[in-house]
């Protein structure tokens, strides 16, 4: 039987720098709206030269941005550099931020574009093993003992399949399916219209599906 399509992964948490990785409670759009209002207030203060307000924005967004760019750039060293650079450019360019976009999409766009640029010039995917050196902690404990091994194998295979994608296809998958951003936010971060973003995302999903075909239950293949 075909189940109803799953809810998308949890969206960006209210305070990304403070979230609990295992917190898989459903998060709804109103939480994002609350965060955005607070961000706007902090941005306004920071634009007036209040560095403490900007530092609060760093505390809210730095670790989540780092996790995103780590998945795109592949190397933890690169990801740290990209995260620092993104915030530095945001701080320097804050007066140019007109508020047309949400702060986090503007910030992520800076960081993600830099991560994509670095990933394009990086060694071939699969050679970089930083994600294995820094294994990611699952947000949920998995399907229980019976399916745990199968889930683990599929997860490892997916990690490799995502890493092997070209950064232009890896990025939409990271933003939408791993980070759980909305299609609109993820497309804006990548500088694509939604149709183009969806097309790229779908091709990425088909590519990883093909790559992990042998790890899927028989009913799914």
């Amino acid at each position, binding site marked *: 039987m075909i189940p109803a399509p799953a809810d998308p992964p949890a969206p960006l948490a209210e305070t990304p720098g403070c979230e609990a990785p295992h917190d898989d409670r459903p998060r709804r759009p109103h939480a994002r709206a609350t965060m955005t209002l607070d961000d706007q207030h902090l941005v306004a203060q920071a634009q007036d030269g209040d560095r403490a307000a900007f530092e609060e924005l760093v505390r809210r967004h730095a670790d989540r941005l780092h996790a995103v760019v780590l998945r795109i750039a592949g190397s*933890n060293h690169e990801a740290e550099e990209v995260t620092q650079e993104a915030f530095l450019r945001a701080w320097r360019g804050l007066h*140019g931020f007109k508020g047309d976009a949400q702060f986090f999409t503007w910030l992520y766009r800076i960081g993600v574009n830099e991560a994509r640029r670095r990933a394009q010039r990086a060694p071939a995917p699969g050679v970089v093993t930083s994600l294995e050196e820094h294994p990611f902690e699952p947000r949920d404990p998995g399907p229980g003992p019976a399916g745990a091994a199968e889930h683990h194998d599929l997860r490892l295979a997916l990690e490799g399949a995502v890493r092997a994608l070209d950064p232009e296809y890896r990025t939409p998958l990271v933003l939408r399916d791993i980070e759980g951003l909305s299609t609109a936010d993820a497309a804006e971060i990548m500088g694509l219209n939604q149709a183009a973003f969806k097309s790229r995302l*779908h091709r990425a*999903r088909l590519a990883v599906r093909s790559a992990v075909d042998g790890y899927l239950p028989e009913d799914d293949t």
Partner: protein
Amino acid sequence: MSDYLEGELGGRRQRRITRHAEACPDCGPMLRGLMRIRIVLGSFGRPRTQATVVPLVLERIREDEASTSAGPTQDSRS
């Protein structure tokens, strides 16, 4: 298929594709596999061994500010 996975088709079209996929030997496994993958991707989470990068970022900004003795500039990027 992409819009179906996102649940964006609306009730009737969504149900119609569900019915088709349940009977179709090609579409059914494809959709089930994509759904399963999406669920697993959503469970990936954050680096286990990774310390917070907040201090690094704050230090970088403070260093930059100390070297320039200025707050946000008029550099436009939005």
